[in-house]
Structures are given as structure tokens and as C-alpha cells.
């Protein structure tokens, strides 16, 4: 299928290639562009499912900015029980691992969600979204180290599924939150989520977004996030999944050289619906053209 070995191991999970969607940018079957088979992806990560039903934030929820967009969608969700009963089965015919992203407003939410999920064999792994800037006070869990450690520790006890912890970039030192996640039992960290941001309408003299602030994503944040991945790679032994501004295979290669094991494509799925498959093909071709036989050979090369 590929010219080189693109497999990646995360926890006990092996992905056939390192490319997956960032949570919230690629959703249920009838809500995708459907321009390639989902089984082409290394894994599917669906929109974070909250512990309880939520409607999400007030409109407007998105605004375009230079080289990216700010979103304040606020995780509309049917709640974890309903998701497990009604939605999850839709994904089961797919020939690719399913990673369930979980959201909560407090530590107990995550603990309860994972109790409900338990070790459900339909799932390949769990991603704890501890970094959404648009839920609750807007202070992400992973910016409070004690809280981060508490959530991951509690969740770890509830499941044997591989656990990815999605960290916030809105923090002084990402190495601290990455290390705390590793110590509490995470199998990988996702670096990172959106950067808190806002836009003001100078005619209306008001914030554009209904939620006032949101999270910036897109190529605009890639250089900042690249450094976070680079730092994280040096501070922990578990894999780093890079997420931030990937729009082409060159971006992915750059992240692998910074130390990423796998990558997530976010809002560039919107600007180019073929982005993820083009990234997979581009990584494979780059490796072959540069006489590498496997992806693991370029991981962390920039260090």
C-alpha cells in the first residue's frame, strides 16, 4: 500500500499511518465532505463528546483571521450515554481505529464518562480533551497542573484503553503539563489545542464571536506549536501527537523532525477536503525520495 513503513505505535495501539483528523474538524459520516474513504486514515478522532448534552456557544462561532480561523463552537454534544448507545456503532464498520475524544466541565465528568466507556472494544483509544478554551470558564484543565494530574490519574484507573491527553498551548511551560500527563499514566500527549484569541468588529465596536473569545487554529499557529512539540519531545518518553496548522505534507515532516510520532489535521480539512490523504501520500513519497524505509527514522531528527 505504501512505499515505506508508516506505522506508528501509541500505547498498545498500532496505526497504519500517522495521520488523523483533529477532534472537531471531521465528524459523523453524513457530515464530512466524503471525498475519500475514511479507512485511508491512520485513525478517526471524532468531535469531543461531553459528559452531558450541550448546545454549544452562541453564534457567531467562527471567524476567519490571517492564516487561520478562531472558533468558539463550545462542544455541542449529545452526551456520552447517548453517544455510546446511538452514534458509536456507525463507526464500527470502518477499517481504521476509532479514537473517542472526551470533554467535561469538571474532573468528575471525565471520570464518569470513562466509567461509562470502560474498555469498550469498539474503541481503539481515548483522547482526553483537557484543553478546550470554549467550555466553562475558558481555563483549560491542562493549564492547572494539579487538576491535570488528578483527571488523568482518575481516568487511568477506569480503563485499559490507550489514553491520549490533549494539552493546551495556553501555558507557560508545556513540558510541565506533558510530564504530569506521563506520570499520571497517559500513553501519549497531543500538542496541542487552539490558542486563545479574539477578534473585534471595529464597525460594531464589539467582539465578533458570541463567546467573546475563542481558539485560533490554522497555519498561523504552526511555528508556535512547532516549538511546543520540540520541547515536549525532549521532556517525556511517551509519544507526542502534533496538532497545529498542518495543511500539507511538508508541515507534517517538520513536526516529525521536531519529535512527533503522529499528526492531526484540523481546520485545513475545511480549506482542502483532500488534505489528509495528500499528507499521507506526501510523507510516504518524501521518505522514499530521501532513502528512508520507515517514518521512525526521521522522528526527532531536528534535535
Amino acid at each position, binding site marked *: 500500500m505504501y512505499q515505506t513503513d508508516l506505522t506508528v505505535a501509541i500505547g498498545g495501539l498500532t496505526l497504519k499511518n500517522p495521520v488523523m483528523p483533529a477532534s472537531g474538524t471531521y465528524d459523523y459520516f453524513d457530515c464530512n465532505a466524503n471525498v475519500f474513504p475514511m479507512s485511508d486514515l491512520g485513525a478517526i478522532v471524532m468531535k469531543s463528546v461531553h459528559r452531558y448534552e450541550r*448546545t454549544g456557544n452562541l453564534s*457567531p462561532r467562527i471567524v*476567519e483571521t*490571517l492564516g487561520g480561523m478562531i472558533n468558539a463552537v463550545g462542544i455541542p454534544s449529545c452526551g456520552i450515554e447517548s453517544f455510546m448507545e446511538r452514534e458509536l456503532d456507525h463507526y464500527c464498520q470502518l477499517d481504521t481505529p476509532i479514537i473517542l475524544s472526551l470533554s467535561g466541565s469538571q474532573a468528575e465528568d471525565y471520570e464518569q464518562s470513562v466509567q461509562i466507556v470502560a474498555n469498550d472494544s469498539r474503541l481503539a483509544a481515548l483522547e482526553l480533551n483537557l484543553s478546550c478554551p470554549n467550555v466553562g470558564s475558558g481555563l483549560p484543565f491542562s493549564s492547572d497542573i494539579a487538576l491535570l494530574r488528578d483527571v488523568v490519574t482518575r481516568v487511568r484507573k477506569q480503563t485499559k484503553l490507550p489514553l491520549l491527553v490533549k494539552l493546551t498551548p495556553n501555558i507557560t511551560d508545556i513540558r510541565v503539563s506533558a510530564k504530569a500527563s506521563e506520570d499520571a499514566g497517559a500513553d501519549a500527549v497531543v500538542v496541542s489545542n487552539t490558542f486563545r484569541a479574539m477578534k473585534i468588529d471595529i464597525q460594531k465596536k464589539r467582539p465578533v464571536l458570541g463567546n467573546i473569545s475563542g481558539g485560533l487554529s490554522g*497555519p498561523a499557529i504552526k511555528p508556535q506549536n512547532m516549538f511546543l512539540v520540540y520541547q515536549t519531545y525532549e521532556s517525556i518518553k511517551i509519544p507526542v501527537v502534533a496538532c497545529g496548522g498542518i495543511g500539507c505534507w511538508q508541515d507534517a515532516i517538520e513536526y516529525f523532525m521536531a519529535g512527533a510520532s503522529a499528526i492531526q489535521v484540523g481546520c485545513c480539512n*475545511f480549506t482542502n477536503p483532500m488534505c489528509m490523504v495528500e499528507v499521507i501520500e506526501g510523507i510516504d513519497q518524501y521518505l522514499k525520495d530521501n532513502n528512508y524505509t520507515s517514518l521512525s527514522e526521521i522522528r526527532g531528527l531536528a534535535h
Partner: protein
Amino acid sequence: MYETTKVLSNEKICSGVYSMVLQTDKIADASAPGQFVMLKGWEGNEPFLMRPFSINTADSEKGTITFLYKVVGDGTKKMAGLQHGDAVRLLGPLGNGFPIDGGYKYAAVVGRGIGIAPMRFLVERLTAQDTIVYAYLSAKNEDFLFHKELFEKLGAVVRTTTDPTVRVTSFLERDVEIIPFDAAYSCGSNRLAQDLKQLHDKIGLTAYVSLEEHMACGVGACKGCTHTAYDPVTGESFYVRVCKEGPVFPVERVVG
């Protein structure tokens, strides 16, 4: 469907308004009135997102799709510079179009300015099935009364106003007393939608409105383009995605 299409023509119609015709493989054939596409006619990240455009008309035999657009921001500015042979990427057709019943005898189409754009495809389809169309068009001046002549040529009764003190829906209010409209349609204007909602409440007029909203994905994934909707029975409000559940809605569902 995701296609790289070619610009056949991109002509200025009047001040700041252009009509662009693209050659497609499959999208034109699959398109229905009221549907939209996500469009990107430039390389790179400026502007970043694809843009939603309503389909002005589509010709399945020739494989062409036409957009009538007004230059308002960075995306439409780039589009205005496109020339014959340039590549434009399209994702679509997307969303739910205007419901059309083959048995409709009379239909009313209401549009203001650039909001008339998607009405062309609708009027073409309605008149082709021998529905008698009344078109109510308003604009700031004659230049922006798009498709007035075309609608007349297609056999529609066209009523227009360029007077800011006259609501074009006042003509419709008068006509509903003598014409049993099966359905009425509008696009883009909150004021027109409000007026259709009043007629719906007063006389039970079946009315559909097409909503506009900023979009990122156009396919329902990002949940960015929400609009408040109402349960007609309980009156309860909730969010709908304009791209996925819409962009066309029964007026009573989205106008409070």
C-alpha cells in the same frame, strides 16, 4: 463531490457584481435550486477558508454552473480577478435546496439585491414545470434588480421596487388575496423573511427562506454556522446548522 473546475467566463454585471460561469464534471448535473457550493479560486492561505456561494443556475447538459456574486471581502475580491481558464475548486452541491412540488400552480419568489442570485435557478425550474411564478424584486436601483428581464422572458409576473420606503412584500400581501400561492421563497434578507413569516402566521402561506451564515466546512462537521430554530409545536428553541439542516428552512422554523 470535490472538483477542480475551469472558469469559462467572469463578467462584471454592474458596480461590484460579477457573474462567473465554471465548467464542471459532475457538480452542475447534481445541483438543485437553493443548494450551495464551497468555493476556492486562489492558492495559499489568504483568504484562508473556502467561501459558500449559492448556485445562480446550473446547466446539466453543458456541465456549467454559474455564480452571481457581489464583491464584499477578500474572497470575492480574488474571485473578481479570475479569468477564462483559471482553476476554481468546488465542493458541492451542498445543503438542502428549495422544496418544489411538481403540482404547484402558483409560486411567489421574493428577493432583494444580490439575494436574488439563487432565485434564478428556482424560477427556471418552476417555470419549466409550468408553475406560474410571481417574482417580487427590490433593490437600491434598477441595476441591482437582477434577472428582471429573464424572469419576464420565462413567463413570470415581475413586480419591482427601488423605492426605499416601499416594501416589495406589500405587493405580495395584496396578491395573496387573489392568488392561491402554493409556496413562497426568499433568500438572504432578514426583513423579507420576517414579512414572509407574518404572511405565514396570518394566512398560512407556505414559505421557505434561505439563510446566509459564515461557514468554515460547509458540510456539517465544524458546527460553526449555527442559527436559532424553533419547534413549531412546543415553541422550544434550539440550534441548527445552516449548511447541513439548511440553508433553506420553512420560515416558521427559523424566524421567531
